[in-house]
């Protein structure tokens, strides 16, 4: 939704702002100033700026989100190894503390910027804007933004990405989309990660995960993969190549 054309006025709130509506007059009977801006107006403004920056450089930006430990960094390592020279990747890493993940990515020969968020439980558009000052985008095809491991807060902050990829690892349980609908509704693609554990953690049913995802009206495709034994990886790499071509 934008803040200029009136599309912020939805079926849910339009009754409040019509002339005789609840918000037309305040409790003291005075006229109130109608605003109808997203509470994250400033973040969204910077996110738009970031997206324009990616677009100018013809760089596809993919925001990776999941619980902590679902395998985002391992997926990126395997992806970089398997893509080889086909696509040039850069990575922005978000964690509360440490450079560990950026160092793992740099060992793969890829440029990585670490954002240490301190106590913040999510990345926001301003942090990405700062990181982009240090990232050379010439000749880069894809920027992966590895968000802070968290299935709640990152869902609220647009970073300027083009696509959201959400990892759901097998040890977490197949009902995560039902428990965290706000997060899973943002998904362009859901990856069931650590699929090598499916034989031992047989209470995880990938069909249940898909059903819970459809219950929240998500049309996102669902792939199973393992960064460890590389099963399912080609499917994911094909998807990435398709997105780059479509972009």
């Amino acid at each position, binding site marked *: 939704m934008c803040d200029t054309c009136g599309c*912020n006025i*939805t*079926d*849910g*709130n339009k009754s*409040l*702002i019509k002339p005789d509506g*609840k*918000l037309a007059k*305040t*409790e*003291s009977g*005075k006229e*109130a*100033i*109608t*605003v*109808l*801006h*997203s*509470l*994250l*107006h*400033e*973040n969204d403004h910077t996110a738009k700026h970031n997206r324009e920056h990616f677009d100018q450089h013809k760089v596809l930006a993919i925001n990776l989100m999941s619980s902590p430990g679902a395998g985002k960094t391992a997926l990126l390592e395997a992806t970089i190894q398997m893509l080889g020279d086909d696509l040039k990747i850069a990575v922005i890493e978000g964690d509360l503390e440490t450079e560990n993940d950026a160092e793992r990515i740099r060992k793969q020969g890829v440029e990585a910027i670490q954002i240490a968020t301190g106590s*913040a*439980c*999510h990345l*926001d558009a301003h942090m990405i804007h700062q990181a982009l000052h240090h990232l050379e985008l010439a000749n880069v095809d894809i920027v992966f933004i590895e968000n802070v491991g968290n299935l*709640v*807060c990152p*869902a*609220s*902050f647009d970073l300027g990405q083009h696509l959201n990829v959400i990892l759901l690892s097998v040890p977490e349980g197949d009902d995560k*989309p*039902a*428990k965290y*609908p*706000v997060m899973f*509704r943002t998904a362009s693609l859901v990856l069931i990660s650590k699929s090598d554990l499916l034989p031992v953690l047989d209470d995880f049913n990938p069909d249940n995960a898909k059903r*819970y995802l*459809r*219950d*929240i*009206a998500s*049309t996102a495709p669902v792939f199973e993969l393992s960064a460890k034994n590389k099963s399912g990886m080609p499917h994911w790499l094909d998807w990435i190549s398709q997105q780059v071509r479509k972009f």
Partner: protein
Amino acid sequence: MHELAICQSLMSQVERIALEHEAQSVISIVIGMGPLSGVEAQHLKNAYSIASADTLAENAKLIIEFLPLRVKCNQCGSESDALPNKLVCKQCGDWRTRLISGDELLLMSVELAQT
């Protein structure tokens, strides 16, 4: 606890509006939020008391309007109420629906005092 970050963003918007209108203080702020906004009302209220300190809205009343969760079916076209993790059409049961209300997180209005 991203509500504090969201509240700080809210306060800077409200202060900017107050300054634009040359107001002396803010009397009330109305927020509209849906069940899929990703924000907890109680956390927002708690964060508000911290974020509003030393601003023009220090004594302003925060009013939260809860907006309904509604979907429109892409298949049969009917509109129905929904639950945050059950956004299927109540008429035909199809999952291919579009959210028409319920994910908003809006600063709807502010009431300003000129004296």
